[in-house]
């Protein structure tokens, strides 16, 4: 198990190097730092001095890959690639355009993101699986058909509609919770309640339908017939046998997103004014703060790979046949 984990982590390194090189190519080779400076300072009236100053402030005035002016190890380390891209492997993301330390910013903003994303994830999982089990229990009846029709309808609605509609009805018409804002501690409940509710509601359609498909696939198998034949009630079959055996496909889709919860949700956070990583990303995109976007891309892929490893580990917990070697 330990050996397997170590090997998986070692496998992750080439992938992260790939991500790193890709972002480096995207941000520094497709566009030279000169282009970015001109874009930010205004395309027309911009002096070469101003561009130099802009590049110097951000440390973009170095050669890309190889600094022939420096000596010794400086040939490699005193370059944009080393300073800006390779340094991300030790989670040193440098500074954003407004001069803040990106790593520290990420640490402080993780909590609000998590305060929304974690409850949304947990409540969502329970709601979707229960709804799917309900539809499976009543499969083939009018309730099932209506439920599936509802799911298709719900998944055809834009995610933006849930947010805008929810904010309008709950906050503006009923005045139940504030429209936006955030507060740490217990006082924050009134701020996070609506985003969580909307987050759960937004996923009902696609997730429940997906789980229902998984359950229906299991329910046609021989062991289910055996269980029924020996006289188990339908509910017992569903919970004791079908749910348990459907765990592998469920875990495949679910565990991988757990680490990504740290990244928060772009839309929800920006609509509700939550100071999390999602709104941080969206602000950075709108302000064209390339340093922050690069950091978030790297962080996102690290978390995704952690999620993949966790998925494999979780298989061993639900299925004794899976051995990690």
């Amino acid at each position: 198990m330990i050996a397997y984990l170590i090997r998986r982590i070692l496998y992750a390194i080439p992938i992260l190097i790939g991500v790193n090189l890709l972002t480096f190519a995207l941000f520094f080779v497709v566009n030279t730092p000169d282009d970015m400076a001109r874009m930010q300072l205004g395309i027309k009236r911009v002096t070469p001095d101003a561009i130099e100053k802009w590049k110097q402030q951000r440390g973009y005035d170095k050669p890309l890959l190889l600094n022939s002016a420096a000596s010794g190890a400086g040939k490699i380390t005193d370059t944009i690639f080393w300073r800006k891209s390779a340094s991300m492997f030790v989670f040193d993301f440098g500074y954003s355009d407004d001069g803040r330390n990106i790593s520290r910013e990420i640490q402080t903003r993780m909590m609000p993101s998590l305060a929304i994303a974690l409850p949304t994830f947990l409540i969502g999982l329970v709601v979707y699986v229960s709804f799917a089990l309900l539809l499976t229990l009543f499969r083939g009846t009018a309730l099932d058909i209506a439920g599936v029709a509802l799911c298709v309808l719900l998944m055809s609605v834009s995610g933006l509609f849930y947010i805008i509609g929810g904010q309008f009805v709950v906050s503006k018409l009923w005045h139940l919770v504030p429209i936006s804002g955030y507060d740490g501690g217990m006082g924050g409940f009134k701020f996070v309640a609506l985003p969580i509710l909307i987050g759960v509601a937004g996923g009902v359609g696609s997730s429940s339908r997906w789980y229902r498909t998984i359950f229906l696939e299991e329910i046609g198998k021989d062991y289910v017939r055996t269980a029924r034949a020996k006289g188990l009630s339908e509910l017992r079959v569903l919970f004791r046998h079908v749910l348990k055996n459907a765990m592998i496909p469920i875990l495949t889709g679910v565990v991988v997103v757990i680490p990504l919860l740290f990244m928060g949700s772009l839309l929800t956070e920006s609509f509700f004014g939550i100071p999390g990583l999602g709104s941080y990303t969206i602000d950075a995109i709108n302000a064209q703060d390339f340093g922050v976007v690069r950091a978030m891309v790297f962080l996102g892929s690290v978390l995704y790979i952690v999620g993949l490893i966790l998925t494999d580990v979780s298989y061993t917990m639900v299925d004794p046949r899976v051995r990690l070697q």
Partner: protein
Amino acid sequence: MMPVILWTDALVFLLIAVGFASAWYIRQRPHLMLPWQRVARSSVGMVSLLVLSLFLLVGLLDSLHSRAALPEKSNGQTVYSPEVLSVFDTLAKGLRSRTEKTYSAPLAAYLYAKESMEAPDSKVARDYPRLKYGGAHLADPQRDLAGDVVRRALLGAAGGLLAGVFLITVVLASFPRRRESSGFEPKAFSNGWIPAFAGMTGNKTFRAVLITALLLATLIGAIANLATVYHVIGTDKVGQDVLYLSLKSIRTGLVIGTVTTLVMLPFALLLGVAAGYLRGWVDDVIQYVYTVLSSIPSVLLIAAAVLMMQVVIEMHADWFETSAARADVRLLCLCLILGVTSWTGLCRLLRGETLKLREMEYIQAAQAFGVSSLRILTRHVMPNVMHIVLISVVMDFSALVLSEAVLSYVGVGVDPTTISFGTMINAARMEMGRDPMVWWALAAAFGFMLVLVLAANLFADAVRDAFDPRLNRTEGVT
């Protein structure tokens, strides 16, 4: 008039050509027709296909662009207007050109905002001014508006219904024999179309499609008749007709949903099949590439790529003759970027399926006969993974249409000058706080999007049900 072929136009028509070519190919081969006949028997599938083809018609009309010639000439050469217009723009000239000053509610005769106006007795009073076009023919809107709207709607509905009946009769009369192959009773067609029609109304699917078509014709008739003198879904901030904007958005949604697939499909198909069949280092390299791409959260990858593309386009403003061409290249780039981020899923599926197929006996037999790898791939493997490709293409379409709106909100979507559901929602979102609320633009964007995506989802389900080999069915019994 100078025809302008934008990049996305060319790709859309290429896609249509590919569609027709494969339809012709499939018609020749009964075993390929079989699943499509199952689709044709599904009421939900056919009704949603009808709705989708209406959207497609609007989108196609909106994809034929040209620039009008200006009356004055400069040294003997004709000068063309910088404005690129489509056939749809010409057809909907009334909708496009009748702009008001600012917001107005659906079917209103008055503006949304009060203005200072000089009364006949030269007193200045603040009141809602009349609209320039909406309901301008009414002498006293307070009294006549409701009656006029109902009268015009009924008249239009009746006209639409008549036109619908006429159109359906013409269609049925011109292809009486075509029906045979699409799953309807063949013997009803042996003598002319009137008995054929009578026979088909007994068919559940045909009845559903017929009723939907007539309902749609009635609805379109009513709206079209009202739209000649009113703004049916109101006007937006700069007074543009929201109905016109919604109809224009359809093309953007369709382009995003289809062109993206077109650009990603060759890569996904080739790489996925090659990885699964060839194994070894090819498999390792391809797996590495798609793991790297899929490990970056897609919104972030799209954002990073779009930000960079923006810089390139801004830096090279001289590449583009008109602003429409520029916006179009941006739309195309967005499709490419979305394609790059979404091909990984399909590629992985195809690789897995090919791994399974290469152990099949018929592939082993081909290998034993010494058939080359390339030929095995094209003759034996690819046709057998096509159902996966088709299912994932139709399933992806609706997700792509929805993601366009989200990306435009995030600021990494289409060009702000491109009319799309995303830009409409973005503009309308700001006006939620006004009192009385400006809800119509938002409602129109979400409504049109819902109909399009719902139809696409239902059609995708019908296609999946018909093509999925895992579903056991007894052919010929039904």
